[in-house]
């Protein structure tokens, strides 16, 4: 692998931040000592198995669980009717009409997608639970299925939700600037009839799961799970289960990947809770791969129709209008937030000022969608990148020139987009140069490929990875909602033996929070990061956590680490306060923290180790001044600077930071078969100040692999009856070792002016790979690419 680092970056010296230190997490994970949800056992626990719908759309005419319950070793069952009696429908984020639908933890009266949980069975072994689930008799009256979002609003379309009165879930018009003026000024109007962004997700290798205990005495549930956003699960589950949020204790340690796909497991968690209470025993649920593919968190499938682009003859982009049609699947589990999240990156990386998007989201008889790495922005950024390459082709211009002419420029930063988002910093043109330099000249390679009967193509993908949400954007979807801003919390304390302990509200799934948090703490306290103990995982009872705690939406480096920084600085102040007393009134300014203790700058011999500080405050505090308010146990909540957006104009800053990625893919197509390989690849990243460069690069490479898989192979394809045709890794081909192209990486660092550490959230920028592969296919075939998924057959068809 080649890596390019621009000269202007000076590698940080003599501090933990900025160093690629190995991770604290690695020892337990490489020795098989991690604790993942399915590793947890409890005495007398029962295993839960879901009876799932074989139909995409059907009335449930009868359910008979008696044969299942008769079996020895079967503890009990739960049906939709019981759920409807014991819980209220989940709170809906949507305004009308989607807000009307009634969503329960199990299907009630009707099933709406293949794989939808209908009945839950609990037994004393996994195998027996599945045996018994086969004895549950469910009678269905099949209905015709709606699988194409474009049919959803037709009068004769099958109707999923009577309560909503139609398949329309949410609709909104976004318009900024002066479209008429832009199109009047345009030399050319490029029209694109239809673009399609396909359905896939990140398929974390560990599927969802839980072990739930109910404490009868306190009426409190302990939910060991791998849900990656417990704060969200809690506000969904509490009201539905008619209990206070403090009755729901979420505990996670190691999570086997999330990528957003583990945010919406709350319906299954509710089923586990109800059964743990009903059966008075711990209930364990493991989601298997086929279950996950059929029912969990597909990425938003989106159509862009009747697109018109106003452009000058020299390739200057003025504006565009399009109609976005989003396929939400059967339920709104996090939707319709996808209807606004894209607006964080409305103009993509470009300077056009006049934009209109008519956004419509509909329900279909497919698995519910919810966040997937790059959530909703990826679809929109793919669209803007497709537009750039199609415009370049129509005008006979070089895609590189069109990009450079229209990219937001370094000197424009911070840049306010037409909808009021603030791009904090960056230099996209420089990133593109680095990427092209990594690839080197291609014309010779093009000729060489031709000589071998192959078609070579080069494609660029630019993306923004907007991080740290302003949850106020949810009000653009539903003005009634009372969400805004964001927060994360950390507690840093000095224990009796001088142990530095950090607790976080986050739920890492491989991002290395224990390591990067320790790097930040060690720099502030002047100690070794080996002396910093960051508690693994999340515990909503014993670790500090805040309303938006979790690990999602590219924000830890901003929200999490800023909270850690804040708490550690508070602790540093307290340590100095204490020391100045111990040193007999030496002013705090005369003290410094170093080598695991506090000392007098001019007299380093006067040294008080942290161990002494911890011991004094915790166990030896007699005689300390009354007014010394020092606990050495500091909690800090980081709150990013946000305003509530202007709901009328749909205007305001929706995210705090904008990391950027520019990828370049080089492919070779075998024109006879459509088979193609990625023969060279460059990924350049800018996420501001990097706390641990190796972890950042790991995110870049991993996201790239996912993008390559999505572009070439991964798709959730349904037949006309709504059967999922890619229900497992046999048909849903994710990249393996032999599929990986050579990968060259580069980076620049444009510190964010808006964050305490100059960091930007990152990790979701991999979408660039999809854009780049699409562009490369277009370059190689000379045919306009209109779909984000290009398997061999589609490439072959392009060439016919």
């Amino acid at each position, binding site marked *: 692998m080649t890596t390019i680092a621009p000269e202007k970056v000076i590698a940080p010296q003599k501090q933990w931040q900025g160093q690629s230190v190995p991770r604290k997490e690695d020892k337990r994970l490489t020795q098989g000592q991690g604790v993942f949800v399915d590793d947890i056992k409890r005495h007398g626990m029962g295993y839960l*198995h879901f009876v799932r719908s074989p139909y995409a759309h059907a009335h449930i005419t009868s359910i008979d669980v008696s044969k299942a319950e008769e079996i020895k070793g079967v503890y009990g069952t739960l049906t939709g009717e019981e759920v409807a009696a014991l819980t209220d429908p989940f709170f809906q984020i949507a305004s009308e009409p989607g807000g009307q639908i009634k969503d329960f933890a199990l299907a009630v009266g009707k099933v709406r997608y293949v794989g939808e949980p209908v009945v839950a069975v609990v037994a004393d072994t*996994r*195998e027996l639970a*599945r*045996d018994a689930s*086969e004895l549950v008799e469910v009678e269905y009256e099949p209905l015709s299925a709606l699988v194409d979002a474009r049919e959803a609003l037709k009068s004769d379309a099958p109707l999923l939700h009577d309560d909503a009165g139609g398949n329309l879930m949410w609709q909104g018009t976004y318009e900024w600037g002066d479209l008429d003026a832009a199109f009047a000024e345009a030399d050319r109007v490029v029209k694109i009839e239809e673009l399609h962004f396909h359905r896939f997700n990140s398929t974390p290798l560990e599927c969802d799961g839980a072990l739930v205990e109910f404490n009868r005495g306190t009426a409190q549930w302990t939910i060991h799970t791998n849900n990656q956003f417990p704060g969200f699960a809690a506000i969904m589950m509490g009201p539905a289960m008619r209990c206070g949020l403090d009755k729901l204790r979420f505990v996670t340690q190691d999570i086997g990947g999330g990528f957003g796909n583990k945010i919406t497991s709350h319906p299954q968690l509710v089923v586990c809770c109800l059964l743990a209470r009903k059966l008075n025993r711990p209930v364990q649920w493991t989601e*298997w791969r*086929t279950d996950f593919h059929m029912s969990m968190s597909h990425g938003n499938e989106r159509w862009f129709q009747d697109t018109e682009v106003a452009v000058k003859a020299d390739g200057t982009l003025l504006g565009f209008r399009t109609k976005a049609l989003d396929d939400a699947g059967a339920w709104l589990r996090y939707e319709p937030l996808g209807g606004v999240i894209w607006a964080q990156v409305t103009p993509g990386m470009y300077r056009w000022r006049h934009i209109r998007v008519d956004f419509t989201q509909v329900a279909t008889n497919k698995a519910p969608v919810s966040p997937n790495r790059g959530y909703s922005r990826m679809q929109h950024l793919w669209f803007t990148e497709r537009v750039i390459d199609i415009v370049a082709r129509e005008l006979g211009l070089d895609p590189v020139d069109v990009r450079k002419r229209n990219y937001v420029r370094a000197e424009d930063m911070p840049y306010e987009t037409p909808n009021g988002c603030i791009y904090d910093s960056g230099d996209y043109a420089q990133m593109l140069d680095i990427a092209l330099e990594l690839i080197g000249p291609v014309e010779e390679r093009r000729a060489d490929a031709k000589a071998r009967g192959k078609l070579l193509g080069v494609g660029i993908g630019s993306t923004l990875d907007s991080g740290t949400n302003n949850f106020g954007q949810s009000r653009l979807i539903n003005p009634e909602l009372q969400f805004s801003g964001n927060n994360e919390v950390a507690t840093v304390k000095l224990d009796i033996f001088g142990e530095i302990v950090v607790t976080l509200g986050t739920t890492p799934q491989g991002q290395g929070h224990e390591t990067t948090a320790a790097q930040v703490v060690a720099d502030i306290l002047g100690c070794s990061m080996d002396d910093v103990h960051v508690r693994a995982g999340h515990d909503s009872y014993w670790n500090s956590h805040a309303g938006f705690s979790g690990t999602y939406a590219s924000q830890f480096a901003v929200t999490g680490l800023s909270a850690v920084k804040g708490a550690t600085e508070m602790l540093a102040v307290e340590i100095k306060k204490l020391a100045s007393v111990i040193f007999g009134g030496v002013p705090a300014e005369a003290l410094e923290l170093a080598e695991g203790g506090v000392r007098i700058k001019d007299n380093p011999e006067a040294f008080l180790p942290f161990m002494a500080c911890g011991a004094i405050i915790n166990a030896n505090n007699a005689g300390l001044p009354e007014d010394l308010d020092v606990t050495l146990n500091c909690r800090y909540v980081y709150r990013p600077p946000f305003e509530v957006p202007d709901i009328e104009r749909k205007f305001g800053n929706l995210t705090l930071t904008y990391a950027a990625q520019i990828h370049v893919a080089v492919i070779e197509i075998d024109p*006879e*078969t*459509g*088979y193609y390989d990625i023969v060279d690849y460059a990924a350049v990243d800018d996420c501001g100040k990097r706390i641990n460069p190796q972890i950042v690069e790991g995110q870049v490479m991993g996201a790239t692999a996912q993008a390559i898989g999505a572009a*070439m*192979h991964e798709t959730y*394809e349904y037949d006309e009856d709504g059967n999922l*045709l*890619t229900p497992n890794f*046999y*048909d849903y*081909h994710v*990249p*393996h070792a*032999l*599929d990986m192209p050579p990968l060259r990486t580069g980076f620049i660092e444009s510190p964010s002016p808006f964050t305490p550490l100059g960091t930007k959230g990152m990790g979701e920028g991999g979408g660039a790979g999809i854009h780049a592969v699409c562009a490369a296919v277009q370059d190689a075939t000379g045919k306009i690419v209109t779909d984000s998924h290009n*398997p*061999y*057959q589609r490439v*072959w*068809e392009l060439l016919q």
Partner: protein
Amino acid sequence: MLLREVEYAKPSSVAEALGLLAADDGARALAGGQTLVNVMKARAASPDMLVDLNGLEELRGIELAGDGTLSIGPMTTYTELMESVEARARPILGEVCAQIADVQVRNRGTIGGNLCSNDPTNHLPPLMAAIGARMTIRGGDGERTMGTDEFFLGVYMTAVGPGELLTRITIPAGKHDGFAAVTLGVDGTCIVNAAASANGSLRVALGCVDAVPVVVEAESPDGVRAAVRAAGIDPPSDVHASSAYRAHLAEVLAERAARQAVEKR
């Protein structure tokens, strides 16, 4: 995961295995299990009893006769075939086995299992059809030996009946063979594959386009595409390829396999 209840027996001789298979028409032979166990996880096919053939030495081993004929025990794993000195007498065998799945599967999966499951996407049925392999089946009333045209009957259906086992695969001498496939990802599941043999006449066998391998013959590689067209195949469609695309790939890959075979002359 989570199979249905099943009985398990581990016979110590082929005779005992045949007895167990004959005694219960719900009994099935368990070879490498790299297909069967996955089908059982899905709770699709459900044998009542698994008769584990692992450990039956009679069903292993690769012998090379003086005339270059290879005799292969069906319980030979892909890895064993790849590493076998004898098997190099027919190099294509090791070359194709190296493309099947991954190390773990090749360490466990067997030649016999690949042939007897006869999944249309398997590599070996078309290969065996092209190189003229002969299969020996043993049952209660003795042995019979047949070519692939009689052996492969349908999807997951072969001439190996209840109470019978594939006991030997015999492969004639030859070095001029080829194999071409378009797979899902590098060395993934075959979308279409083709095997060719140019030892004497030019024979090409196509996989993934019908319930059994489709064999065509031609004078030279130039005639192969026409021969495939003449065979009038009507391949199945699935999420990975339409019938038309498969039919097209069949022609292209048949010719490529044929050229490889001929070029090795």
